[in-house]
């Protein structure tokens, strides 16, 4: 492990890669502040750039920097303008914005910066400790287990979708898997479901799908409802005076940061949970733990209420790299896009990543430390100036967002038909969002689809049929776990409803 860390240090501290981290953080922070462009869209936009770099380590470092920057940028707009640019920073605005309105914008930003730094750094330490252990377990996995594990991952994503949403999330996952079967797969050498269209021969491009699922619907929402992005008018001139927080406040924050770094990290590790859930859960847990006056302070500008979600979401971002780097399974939409980028760069993430290309694995982890440090340095003095970007009028902003979406899809394929597909899929995704269907499962299903089918076919060929399920206990266990994950939420909500009805009858 130590040897790996040194290799990583050497790679991460090359001038080029440090520049990548700084550039990634800067780009991520700037674009992350724009409402409507979350980390997923930004990473999707940056992929063509990253792929052109050619060097997988540099590309992944750049994208990881963008990821952190985007989450961080989202918190600045949450605090200053109550306009969270990213879902993961919605909880930040609960206490951050009231604090900014009390004239403590500087203090709020400092707390956010420190909490994010601590969360990210502790998360990276936990990643260093736990990733190798997880990956040595992963080496025991064969294609049958991989197939089962992906089924578990997909079910977990659906199961974490929330009560009443599981069937919808599963439906989206299956739609993603179906879309992945379009085109000529490597396995069978025959085109499937192309409807005779040459443009579909190579399948649907994942960048096009990613843009269509996230960037385009959000841009459409911004057009449809100007109130969505327009909250920047009022709070823009908040005085950013005092950047310091008191010693007592620092003391109050310490245990919160400690708890939420660990909790956030492990939530991030779970497939499908991610930064958004980690931040909400972190906020909820800390509010329950606080007592009396402190609890009443939550929602009105509490130091703890701001520190908790900020720490948790950054720790969760780091945690979501564990399944990606060690098992090749993306835990969130964002890491799914990262996985796609890695495959495009000819790197197969998985248990062999650490042994075959340790320089990539460790360089990424080391660059997380550098990235967090860069963000801290960046956030404190630059915030007043950076926030000005938000005052770009939407008449200018939206055409540019749409243009970058189109460019993202076009650059990858150099095919104008791709743009028509993007618009078509984007309209579909917008309608899905109207009807409250989650879109991340669709993209995760699409990206895992090919791998899922490959591993399924390989195990079928090895065992001449479905026998592999019975002959490999771990596969069977994982498949049972998957079924359990899907059925548990509906069982629990049914029981809760029955109990509620029982109570009502008793009255």
């Amino acid at each position, binding site marked *: 492990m130590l040897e790996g860390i040194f290799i990583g240090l050497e790679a991460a501290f090359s001038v080029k890669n440090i520049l990548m981290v700084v550039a990634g953080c800067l780009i991520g922070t700037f674009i992350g502040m724009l409402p409507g462009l979350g980390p997923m869209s930004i990473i999707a936009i940056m992929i063509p750039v990253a792929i052109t770099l050619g060097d997988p380590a540099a590309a992944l470092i750049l994208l990881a920097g963008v990821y952190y920057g985007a989450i961080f940028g989202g918190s600045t707009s949450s605090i200053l303008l109550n306009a969270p640019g990213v879902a993961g920073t919605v909880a930040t605005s609960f206490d951050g914005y009231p604090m900014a309105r009390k004239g403590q914008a500087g203090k709020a930003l400092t707390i956010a910066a420190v909490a994010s730094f601590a969360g990210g750094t502790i998360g990276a330490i936990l990643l260093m400790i736990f990733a190798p252990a997880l990956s040595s377990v992963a080496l025991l996995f064969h294609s049958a287990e991989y197939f089962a594990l992906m089924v578990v991952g997909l079910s977990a994503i659906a199961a974490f979708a929330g009560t009443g949403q599981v069937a919808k999330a599963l439906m989206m996952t299956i739609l993603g898997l179906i879309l992945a079967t379009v085109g000529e797969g490597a396995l069978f050498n*025959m085109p499937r479901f192309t409807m005779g269209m040459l443009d579909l021969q190579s399948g649907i491009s994942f960048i096009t799908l990613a843009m269509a699922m996230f960037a385009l619907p959000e841009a459409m929402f911004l057009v*449809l409802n100007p109130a969505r992005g327009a909250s920047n008018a009022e709070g823009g001139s908040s005085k950013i005076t005092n950047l310091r927080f008191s010693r007592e406040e620092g003391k109050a924050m310490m245990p919160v940061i400690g708890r939420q770094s660990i909790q956030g990290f492990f939530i991030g590790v779970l497939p499908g949970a991610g930064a958004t859930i980690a931040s909400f859960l972190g906020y909820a847990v800390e509010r329950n733990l606080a007592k009396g006056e402190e609890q009443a302070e939550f929602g009105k500008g509490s130091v703890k209420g701001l520190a908790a979600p900020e720490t948790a979401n950054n720790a969760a971002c780091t945690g979501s790299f564990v399944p990606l780097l060690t098992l090749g399974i993306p835990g969130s939409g964002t890491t799914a896009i990262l996985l796609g980028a890695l495959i495009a760069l000819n790197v197969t993430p998985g248990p062999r990543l650490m042994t075959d290309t340790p320089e990539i694995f460790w360089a990424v982890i080391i660059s997380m430390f550098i990235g967090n440090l860069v963000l801290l340095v960046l956030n404190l003095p630059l915030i007043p100036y950076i926030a000005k970007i938000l005052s770009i009028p939407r008449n200018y902003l939206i*055409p540019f967002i749409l243009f970058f979406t189109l460019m993202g899809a076009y*650059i990858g394929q150099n095919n104008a038909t791709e743009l028509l597909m993007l*618009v078509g899929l984007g309209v579909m995704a917008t*309608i899905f969002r109207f009807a409250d269907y989650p879109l991340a499962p669709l993209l995760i299903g699409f990206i895992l689809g090919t791998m899922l089918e490959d591993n399924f076919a390989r195990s079928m060929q090895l065992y001449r049929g479905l026998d592999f399920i019975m002959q490999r206990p771990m596969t069977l266990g994982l498949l049972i776990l998957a079924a359990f994950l899907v059925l548990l939420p509906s069982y629990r909500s049914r029981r809760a409803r029955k109990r509620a009805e029982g109570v009502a009858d008793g009255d």
Partner: protein
Amino acid sequence: MALDRWIALIFVTFCCVYGYAAFFTMDQLLPPFMQRNPVWPSTFPKVLAVAGLIVGLIVLFGVEKPDDAEGEPDATDINYRNLSEYKTGQALMLLGLMVLYALMLRPAGFLISTTVFLVAGSAILGERKFHIMIPVAMLATGFVWYLVQEVLGIFLRPFPFFMGM
């Protein structure tokens, strides 16, 4: 019927078509030697079609009850039932503009089509200060073209087709 159920209905129909293709049309094309394989190109699509049908029907018939204690909707979210209250016209025009851009990108070249797209997009959104928007759009187009073509080395035809580039 609520929109999410309509979508489920369409999805179920789609799964039927997809399943029909997988069950009845794909295997005839299979060469004889591949028929001895335990797994065929149509195997996975068959599984997906059946699974999709089941899940689609669950959503369609509302077997899974939504959570009653749902939080209040976000004020900035869109309620599709009052779509007429939103700027639907602008959104549709922008979508049309994107389609037009896709069709014009090759014949008209990157520089012209992108500048027109940016200016027309902001005009649709109500921008009337063309003396600012046109230079901004031209500058941005030129910058992106330089970045993509010259720095990243990805070919983008800059001028219309009749100019020979």
